[in-house]
């Protein structure tokens, strides 16, 4: 039993850690696309936010200041995206790609110009990082057989942004399905004409959706550079924005499925890490490292083809809203 826990608890804890930024980014995409604006610029916004967070935290010594800066930086890019897509009705995909390229270049350029450390920011210590938060009453809970250890080991000891990510899932579900704003936002992604006819500004809602995406990507970026990592280095988001985009589609643009999908990715990843170098039973030698590394992606494709139904995007996503004559 203990042996099983030894194996399972760290894997589950890793699952939560790996999933957290994906959840934040996927929820970001969720808000943007629910409002009718496709967002392939999640990666760029996260990266720029990661830079802003680490740079600000390094200078001020405060992770919270870093988080604030990350949100501002990411939102600034989101504002560009909204201006291009909503006001100018430009191509949403091009705008997203432009933001990815721009963010990669700008973050490294600024980092180099400001810190002269090869595009990295100085390593963060102490209050400049989000430290793991132990579960309140952990030593007491841990006494509970089985469950206690599971709870303390898996749920406890994560940094603030991880908890924020998980808290945001029910919040997003609540906002989208239980509030006036959510109703209008979703309507905007399905039939902006109806929203307009109801006397509500489509542009304002879409700006809101895209800006929320900016804020969430900001938190995700800060999580990457000031909680999970402890400094910024160029291109450190390493494609997570695209994985989040995939997760969003698998989850059919819904918050709870986003949670399960991202946890699924996280779990596959955590298991794959463990499987590296482990001899295959009966074969005696391990699978090639590359096969293990490709495993999460192969499984995703198989799952998608075999079990998950057709994804139905918000109908108006990607289409600039033009009043009909």
């Amino acid at each position: 039993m203990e042996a099983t826990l030894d194996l399972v608890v760290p894997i589950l804890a890793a699952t939560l850690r790996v999933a957290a930024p994906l959840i934040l980014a996927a929820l970001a995409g969720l808000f943007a696309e629910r409002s009718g604006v496709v967002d392939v610029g999640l990666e760029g916004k996260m990266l720029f936010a990661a830079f802003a967070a680490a740079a600000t935290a390094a200078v001020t010594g405060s992770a919270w200041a870093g988080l604030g800066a990350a949100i501002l930086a990411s939102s600034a890019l989101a504002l560009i995206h909204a201006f291009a897509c909503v006001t100018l009705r430009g191509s949403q995909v091009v705008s997203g790609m432009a933001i990815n390229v721009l963010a990669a270049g700008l973050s490294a350029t600024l980092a180099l110009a400001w810190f002269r450390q090869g595009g990295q920011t100085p390593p963060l210590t102490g209050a400049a990082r989000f430290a793991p938060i132990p579960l309140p009453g952990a030593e007491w809970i841990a006494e509970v057989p089985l469950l206690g250890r599971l709870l303390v080991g898996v749920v406890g000891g994560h940094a603030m942004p991880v908890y924020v990510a998980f808290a945001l899932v029910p919040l997003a579900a609540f906002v989208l399905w239980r509030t006036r704003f959510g109703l209008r936002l979703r309507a905007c992604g399905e039939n902006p004409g109806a929203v307009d006819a109801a006397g509500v500004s489509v542009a304002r809602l879409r700006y809101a959706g895209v800006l929320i995406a900016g804020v969430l990507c900001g938190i995700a970026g800060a999580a990457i550079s000031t909680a999970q990592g402890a400094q910024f280095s160029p291109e450190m988001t390493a494609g997570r924005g695209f994985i989040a985009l995939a997760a969003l589609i698998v989850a059919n643009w819904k918050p709870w499925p986003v949670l399960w999908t991202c946890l699924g990715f996280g779990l596959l990843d955590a298991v794959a890490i463990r499987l590296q170098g482990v001899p295959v039973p009966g074969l005696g030698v391990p699978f090639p490292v590359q096969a293990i590394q490709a495993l999460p992606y192969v499984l995703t494709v198989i799952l998608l083809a075999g079990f998950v139904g057709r994804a139905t995007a918000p109908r108006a996503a990607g289409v600039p809203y033009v009043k009909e004559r």
Partner: protein
Amino acid sequence: MTSAAPPAIECRGITKRFGHVLANDAVDLVVHRGSIHGVIGENGAGKSTLMAILHGFYPADSGEILVDGRKVSIDDSADAARLGIEMVHQHFMLVEPFRVVENVMLGAEGGALLKHGEAEARAALKRLAEEYGLAVDPDARVEDLPVGARQRVEILKALYRGAEVLILDEPTGVLTPQEADDLFRVLRALRDEGKAIILITHKLREVMAVTDRVSVMRGGKMVAHRETSETSAAELGELMIGRRPAAAQRPAPSAPGPEILAVEDLRVRDNAGVERVRGVSLALHAGEILGIAGVAGNGQTELLEAVSGMRAPESGTVRLRGEPITGLDAAALRRLGLAHVPEDRLRHGLIPEFEACESAILGYHGDPAWRRFLGLVSGRKVEAHAARLMRENDVRPALPRLRSSLFSGGNQQKLILAREMEREPDVLLVGQPTRGVDIGGIEAIHERLRGWRRAGKAVLLVSVELDEILALSDRILVIFDGRIVGELPGGAADERRLGLLMAGAAA
């Protein structure tokens, strides 16, 4: 009801220009409370523009609007809503995946959280349902509702927002006579409550039946205002098109030829897996127009799709000249002489973003006629072909390189008809041939179909416009809930009986 009270709506000299088109030219309109006011005119007469201005969709270039005698400016739909002006659009402004109650609340949620507002909306829906007979399940998804119910949702939406002035744009286009009657009953009840109702339509029969006053528009101008009781359909028709309309014809009895298309026990499911056609059999003869009457959503769409090769049927057979053609795709069927004018122009009939000449070969794109060396498609040949079609069929503007979406509905439809009839197919499937087409266009299209029949061709006509079915069909089949529930001879069809059959009320 005329009194000293100022009119609910008064428009003075409204002018609106789109580019070089003068859509509204110094238009005046007075609508009183407690009245149903018809605004009639052909497509493009400027009715919709005027209503869009009233509803704040876009601003007028000049002119003023008075509500209850006070001058107002209506900058957006929210302004209109504050003034109690609500509109039921021809293309419903509903969010299809949403529930009815969500649609009703949208824009009038009554607070940041939905919980309270939703309870309120439910109560209001219940009350309105009782008051006006507007029953809809508040938890049904709009995409699952038939058209008539969707329209009720639109009206409920407007009432829920406290509409004092209700604008309805071509509301009966998709309704059965019974549903239309229901609608008119609701409208009268609303009028009696003191609301002002503006009914935009081109159907003179409706105007005569339900309105108190009527205003006629033509070419962007307001050409006449009449008390309904003091005018006639004939006069209105003349005012509308500026000349005396051709007398409505009933088809002369025909002598049908041999059976050419046979459908046997056809069953079809829609994309959601719902069985929409439940065992339909029918026979179509050369030299006949067979009309399929029915309320939208009763399976006629899927029937047409299955026969035309767009959708594989679940079971059953379709034969053309005795040969089974079930499961063949639309291109193969066209080669066999079965052409199809689809119900939904913009979704199926043409490609809105293609140039008109490219839309003019949709379905015939593989034809060697526009190939050149190496079998490549010659742009010039395609263009020349479209130019000829446009010329011969009076498609305006006759610009083959113009984007398809920039043509008016009537001209789009003419182009599609021209395309499908050009190869003289033995069987023509036609769905809603005149939807959104103005009166002049309707006449032309009807005449073409009649000519087609005279030439010994067979036409299967699906339409929700009863007038159209009656005007064209040699025989009428009524479809209800995926089944053929009755057959009537064309010339002598009893409209009342037809209506009852369409509503599923009589076997």
